[in-house]
């Protein structure tokens, strides 16, 4: 099957002090190559500062990579402009970690969901309100909440809104950057299940970024393990969970209490 997203030898470095002629640089991403197939989920795991989120932002085109390339559906993403860029943006949507920061506090949440419809000119001005209500229903939210402000919603509700906003443009790939780590356990399970159901229904692929191995085990088909900007392990979820080949992956697994008990398929959804 053709890869929907291919990341080839992606590098990203940041200047870290030193005089202009001898800048020290921090390698946030160091030669990452991976791919996501249509409708599949790649879990991207690593500790804080391992470069997971940077990779997500590079794929979204929000951060410019220093080297390598991101290829979406056969087309390199770097240097896209105008219609092609807009088309790429429509097909790749983010869901962010912090449900407090991902919605404009001055906008009713319905307007945030509608933003993509307006920007990508999906439907007509008259039909968009209906589309927003459909999206609210699809993510299990009462459409009456559309006129509320984010401050009036719970964390779980906000994350549902964020997912609805990401789904508005009918994307083929969702970059989910720690979408549940800011939520309570019980809400985490609801949002994860919603996410997986939607993916199954709509055939959306996803790059699922998380530090939580229990979560990644639950949602992903494949797992990529990132450590200090380097890809240390890449394989099918079962394979990586049962027979981790890299020492870093083993230490990650050992740090996860549920998995130590020998229940590789237990998920933290209770």
């Amino acid at each position, binding site marked *: 099957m053709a890869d929907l997203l291919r990341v080839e030898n992606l590098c990203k470095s940041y200047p870290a002090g030193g005089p202009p002629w001898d800048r020290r640089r921090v390698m946030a991403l160091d030669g990452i190559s991976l791919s996501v197939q249509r409708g599949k989920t790649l879990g991207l795991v690593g500790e804080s500062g391992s470069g997971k989120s940077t990779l997500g932002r590079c794929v979204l085109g*929000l951060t410019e990579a220093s080297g390598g390339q991101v290829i979406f559906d056969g087309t390199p993403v770097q240097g896209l402009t105008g219609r092609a860029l807009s088309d790429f*943006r*429509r097909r790749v949507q*983010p869901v962010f970690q912090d449900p407090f*920061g*991902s919605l404009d506090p001055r906008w009713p949440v319905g307007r945030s969901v509608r933003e*993509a419809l307006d*920007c990508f000119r999906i439907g007509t001005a008259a039909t968009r309100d209906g589309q927003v209500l459909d999206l609210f229903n699809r993510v299990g939210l009462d459409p009456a909440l559309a006129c509320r402000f984010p401050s009036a919603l719970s964390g779980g509700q906000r994350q549902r809104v964020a997912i609805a*906003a990401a789904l508005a443009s009918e994307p083929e790939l969702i970059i989910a950057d720690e979408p549940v780590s800011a939520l309570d356990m019980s809400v985490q399970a609801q949002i994860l299940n919603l996410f997986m159901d939607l993916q199954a229904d709509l055939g959306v692929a996803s790059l699922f970024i998380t530090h939580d191995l229990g979560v990644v085990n639950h949602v992903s088909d494949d797992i990529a393990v990132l450590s200090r900007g380097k890809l240390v392990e890449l394989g099918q979820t079962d394979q990586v969970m049962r027979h981790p080949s890299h020492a870093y992956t083993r230490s990650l697994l050992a740090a996860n209490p549920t998995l130590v008990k020998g229940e590789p398929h237990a998920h933290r959804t209770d």
Partner: protein
Amino acid sequence: MSRLRSTNAMILAGLAVLALLGVIAVAAPWIAPYDPEALDVMGVMGPPSLAHPFGLDVLGRDVLSRVLYSLRVSLLVSISAVAVATLLAVPLGLLAGYFGRWVDTAISRALDMMLVLPAMLMAITLIAILGPGSAVATLAIAMIYLPILARVMRTSTLVVTGLDYVAGSRARGASHLRVLVSHVAPNALGPVVVQASVLSAFALQLEAGLSFLGLGTQPPTPSLGGMLADGRDVLIQAPWVEIFPGLAIVIAVLAFTLLGEGLRRVFDPRGVAE
């Protein structure tokens, strides 16, 4: 809770006094008992009386009428100076904070160059070039506060630009212009509003200072600073010439400061939490 109430009280008190001063300034021609430029040679330095509640100045002009007319000029100059500065500072700070890189470097270094000159020196230099007067004083005060306001705007823009909803909006296909206008600007404006109202107090003082030195509003148009300059020589014989315009400055500055401090508390997240 009590803090919230005292915050609202500050804003309300500031606004109420400013509104009163504003009405006085606008209505000065109708409520002033005398022509502020009319001389009464017989009553020079006459003390406060029923006919002249604030007394008469060295040329026999009614101090009350002059204070009322002065407020007009002082408020007009200080408010329009800060308004001009804000209107220029907001887009500059937005561009610098949002786009970063060379845009930020160019704008920030230019602002730094404006900040290098001490406020008074900069005002005097500008006035030396363009000539004294209310309009030039307004321009000079605006130039002094422009870099301060632009920096405040830049900083709050930096914070908002880093938030996920800005990145999300870009990913949802919004253009830079759209992101700036609909997300960044409204959410980054709070601190600038606070700073602008605080700076209005300083602008009023600065205008009075410039007029005192004879660089701002020119006689015979009455101005608070000019009146202070007039009364300085007769402080012992006729203190009312000095005291009433001085009080007017104090009250106006206090009102701006109260409003600014109240707004600052509203926008300060720690104030909301309590």
